Structures are given as structure tokens and as C-alpha cells.
């Protein structure tokens, strides 16, 4: 059962990741990306991390992907459906991909990770909360700064200038 789900999720995630990159239309591409991100969320469920999974769904699928979608819709139509590719570059990219997969795959397969397994109970998400507040609290503060900085920065950048600047 779980294996079948895993298989399905794998196909969904990887397939839609490829689709996101390769589909002609950017809109469909972003939808495919959502699928891929959702698939990862599914993996999280499989891994007994519902908190992260929900966070993933909320933040990624819910906001990021939608943000992307809106951005896509901002740009001109012909851009959305235009897909310019450089064949040589694509071949080189596929080559790189294959080499990467083969070598890193072999690396991983040859390592002792194959024997790693766990039968411990899933982690309670309250532990995560405790981590955040006790151990990682400076990181949390920093996180907040990142978000504020990113938001102000993105706002400043994206804001349309009414009057013409001096630059």
C-alpha cells in the first residue's frame, strides 16, 4: 500500500517537475509545479511529518505557486506561450542531468544509507515548536528579519514608479 502510494507520488512529483519545466505554456507549467510541490507534500505525509506537509501546502502550493501564477499572468501573452530553446544547450543539460544522476545515484547507492531504516515513532510536532522557541530562537528572529527585509525589498522593487527617476 505505502509502496504504491510512494510510487504514485514519485511519478507525480518527478513527472510534474519535468512537466513544469518542459510544458510549452507557462501557466500550465506553473500548475504542474504546484503538482510537484503537492507531491512533495505527499511525501511529507508519508514520512509522518504532517506539520511540515501542511506548511508546505499552505506556503508553497498556496502562496508561492499562486504568486508565480499571478506573475505569469502579468506578462504578455505571447511570452507565456513562447518557448525558445537552444538545442545544443538542452542536449548538454540533459547530458549533465544524466551524468549527475548516475554519479550521485551511484554514490548514494554505494553508501551505507541503504541499510538505514527506522521504526521509531513519528516526531511530535510539539517538539518542533519547542525547538523553535528554545534552541532556534535566534534563528527565528533572523527569519523574521529575512521576511521583513524580503517583503520591503520586493515591494520597493516591484513598485511602479510614477514620476520618472533621476537615474
Amino acid at each position: 500500500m505505502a509502496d504504491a502510494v510512494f510510487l504514485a507520488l514519485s511519478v507525480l512529483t518527478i513527472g510534474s517537475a519535468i512537466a513544469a519545466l518542459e510544458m510549452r505554456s507557462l501557466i500550465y507549467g506553473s500548475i504542474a509545479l504546484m503538482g510537484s510541490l503537492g507531491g512533495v507534500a505527499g511525501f511529507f505525509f508519508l514520512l509522518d511529518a504532517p506539520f511540515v506537509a501542511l506548511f508546505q501546502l499552505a506556503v508553497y502550493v498556496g502562496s508561492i505557486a499562486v504568486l508565480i501564477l499571478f506573475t505569469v499572468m502579468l506578462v504578455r501573452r505571447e511570452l507565456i506561450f513562447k518557448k525558445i530553446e537552444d538545442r545544443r544547450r538542452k542536449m548538454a543539460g540533459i547530458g549533465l542531468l544524466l551524468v549527475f544522476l548516475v554519479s550521485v545515484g551511484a554514490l548514494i547507492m554505494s553508501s551505507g544509507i541503504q541499510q538505514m531504516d527506522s521504526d521509531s515513532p513519528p516526531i511530535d510536532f510539539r517538539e518542533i515548536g519547542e525547538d523553535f522557541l528554545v534552541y532556534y530562537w535566534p534563528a527565528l528572529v533572523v527569519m523574521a528579519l529575512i521576511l521583513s527585509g524580503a517583503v520591503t525589498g520586493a515591494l520597493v522593487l516591484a513598485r511602479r514608479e510614477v514620476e520618472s527617476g533621476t537615474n
Partner: protein
Amino acid sequence: MNATPLVILGVLGVAGVILPVLDVARRERFTQAYAAVALGALFISIGYVGYQFVSGMVQPGAIFSTDVLADDAFGGLFAIAMLIVAVFSVTGSISYMRDQKYPAVYYSLILLSAIGMVLVAYSTDLVMLFVAWELMSIPTYVLAGFMKRNPISNEAALKYFLFGAMSSAIIVYGISMVYGLTGTTNISEVIVALTTLDASMMPLAILAIGLFVAGFGFKMGLVPFHMWLPDTYEGAPQPITALLAAATKKAGFAATIRIVVMGMAALHLDWTLALGIIAVMTMTIGNVAAIMQKNLSRMLAYSSIGHAGYILIGLAVAPHSAAGLQGSLYHVLNHAVMKGAAFIAISGVVVALAVTHLDKIRGLGRRMPITALGLTVSLLALAGVPPLNGFWSKLMLFGAALESGSFVWWGPWLAIAAVLNSALSLAYYGWIMRKMYFEGEDAKRVKEPKSVIAVMIFSLLFMVGLGVYPDPVIQFVEMATPTFLLP
């Protein structure tokens, strides 16, 4: 006790958050005030770090605490270097940003980025390090593209962003590997766990190290992860380039030393040759590419790559020579000031003359004497000409490479390559000087931005003063250098 990073976090964080708020609150634009606030915060931070050092409350070397942050001399050294550069950047921006929009956000982002850098150096936990890394990076993406109407700036920012995003993902990937192998994210625990790592897990550990090298190497500008760097440095506003070249790059080294070098040592890997090869590649490509550049920023960007190579020498020979890491840290500090000063000088040129092309800075020595002098001295310092500060750190690095010759055959070759590169670099630095002083004899003097002059004077004092009498800094560096006594 980890008071210092937290104080910095607090001071700069508050200032960084308040600035945009102030901007909203005050309708009239008063750029200098924002800069003053930012400078104030930075000075307080520097003062605090310095005070901690002077009062001896800092633990020497790089320590490994069970907390996410450690208050050690290693971090302190980087903090000082980075904060100085941040001060340069802010000061240099005063004139640069005079007619630009959103100065408050601009300064706030510099402050936030500064926090990130400092915390990267202080981090003793991978998660903290990653988060700090991102705090450092994300504002700089914005800053690099801050000149919204300038396509160059935007292009630079986009390239930077794409690389940055990719490398931060790769860093996370690397962290995940390490975490998977050790079950912890605290660096000290990671290292302890790595020392007893099962042999079958070795490939994964290597993969993780490789990912870290790539991820951090992007920031450091190591070949082959350097390709964004010239483009971004050229396109970004020069004060930001100063920040990128002189500070964020150093954060990469801080992270590498804390994680990669320690981790590699823990893994008993023979990693030195790999780093040595990267070092030679980096400095050679950086210096060779710099030779024919026509754009001042771009030339210095390549030189920056070259310098990353020098610093990496220290890392490469770290296990064999005590002077290696010392030299690296020393060069980090020096390079921060030298490159920072150089880019701020260029920003002054841009403000006053709006040019960066080499052919157009003819006669700069007459047009902007102080800026030109500052640039000249910093170039000479970069070239390692005594008695400027750059000489001493290069000396230690080359010495370390030679010293390692008794353990590894390639040590002297590393030194020779470095030395020849160093000589080669003088060719293009000399080219800049030639353009500034020996051409355009009839140039007339123009007004130089006061803020740039201030930076120039400070850096001149720093470079010459600590070049003539380097002992305090050497002692400082010795204190800050981590040892290989693993926890």
C-alpha cells in the same frame, strides 16, 4: 555566553526595522539621517565587538558551543571586518544615494545583510548558519538590483539571484546530507559524529562536503562557481559591490572554515589537494581574466576572484601549517578593507563623473586626487606591495604554502603559483594607475564626495598604518584562528 552576536542582532535588527518605518513616518526625504542612523547602529556594534575584545571577554579561536551562536574571536574578527565594510558601504552610499529613491529601505537592507554576515561567522549551528546566510543574501539581491531603471543593475541582480537561490538550495541539500549522517545540526556535534562516521557512509559525507564547497564557493567566487561574480559586481551599485566583494564573500569563508574545513578534518579526508587545485584555478583565472578588462568594477571583480584563491591557499594548507588559517583570516580582514576601499573609491568616481570605463578615468589623479590616492594605495595593497597591509597577509599565506612543502609535495608549487599571480596582478593594477596618473594630463579637479573622502582617509590609515606596524593585527588574527583541536 553568546552576548556579542545577539547584541549585534539586536542593535542592527532594530535599526534595520525602524528605518523603513521612519521612512513611512517622515514624508520629507532626508537621506543623510537614515545613513546616520545606520552608521550609528554599525558603530555601536563595532564598538561593542571591540570592547568585548579589549575587555578580554571573548574566547579565542573558533569555539563550538551547544548553542546556535558562539561568542568567539573567530566570529569577532569576521564581524569587525564585515561591519567595517558595512560602514564603508553606508558611507559610500551617502553620496551615491543622494538622488535615489527609498534610501531608508536601502540602508535598512544593508543593515540586515550585515546582521546576516555577522551571524554566519558566529553560527555554531547549521540551521542558524543557513538562516543567517539567507538573511545576508536576500537583501543583497534586492540591493544589487536597487537601481531599478538601470538594466545593468537588474541584470546583475537577476544573475546573482539565480545563482544565490541555487546555491542556497544546494547548501540546504548539503545540510540535509550532514544531518542525515549525524542526526544533528549543531556543528560541534556534527563534527564529533563525523569523526566516528561509518566508512560506508563516507561517500555521502563527501557529497555533502562537495555541496558545501559549491554552495559557499559561489559566494566566495571560487572557480568554477565564480561566473556570476564579474557580471554582478560590474552591474550592481558600487557601494553594494563593495559590500558583496568585501563582506559577503568573507561570510563564505567564515562558513567554509567553520564547516567545511572542520568537517573535512573530522572526516580525515585528503582534501587539501582538491582545495589547492581550486585555489590555483581561482587565482589564475581571476588574475588572467582581469588583465584585459576595460571596466574598473569588472577588473576589480576579477581581482576579487583572484584574492579568493589566495585566501583559499590558507585553507588548503591548514592541516600542515599553523600559519595557513592565520593568513587566511588575516587576508580576509585586509581584503575586506582593501577591496571595500577600492569599490567605494569607484563609487565616488561614479558619483562625481559617472564613469567606470578605464579609458574614461584618464587623469583621475588630477581630477579626484584623494579618491585616486585611496584607490592607488588599495590597489597596491591588493597587489601585496609592502609596506601595506596586504603584503603581510599574503606573506603569511605564501609562507604557509611553503611551509606545508615538508608535508605535501605541491605546497611550494602553490606558493609559486600564488606569487606569480600576485606579480601578474600588479600588471593590471599598474594599468589602472597608469590611466589615472599618466594619462589625461590636462584634467581639471572636480569636487569629490565628502563621504568617499572619509572612507578613503580611513582606509589609507588602516592600510598604511597596519602595513607599517602590523603586529596588533597579527596578534588579533592569531587569537582568532581556530585550531584543529576538535571538540
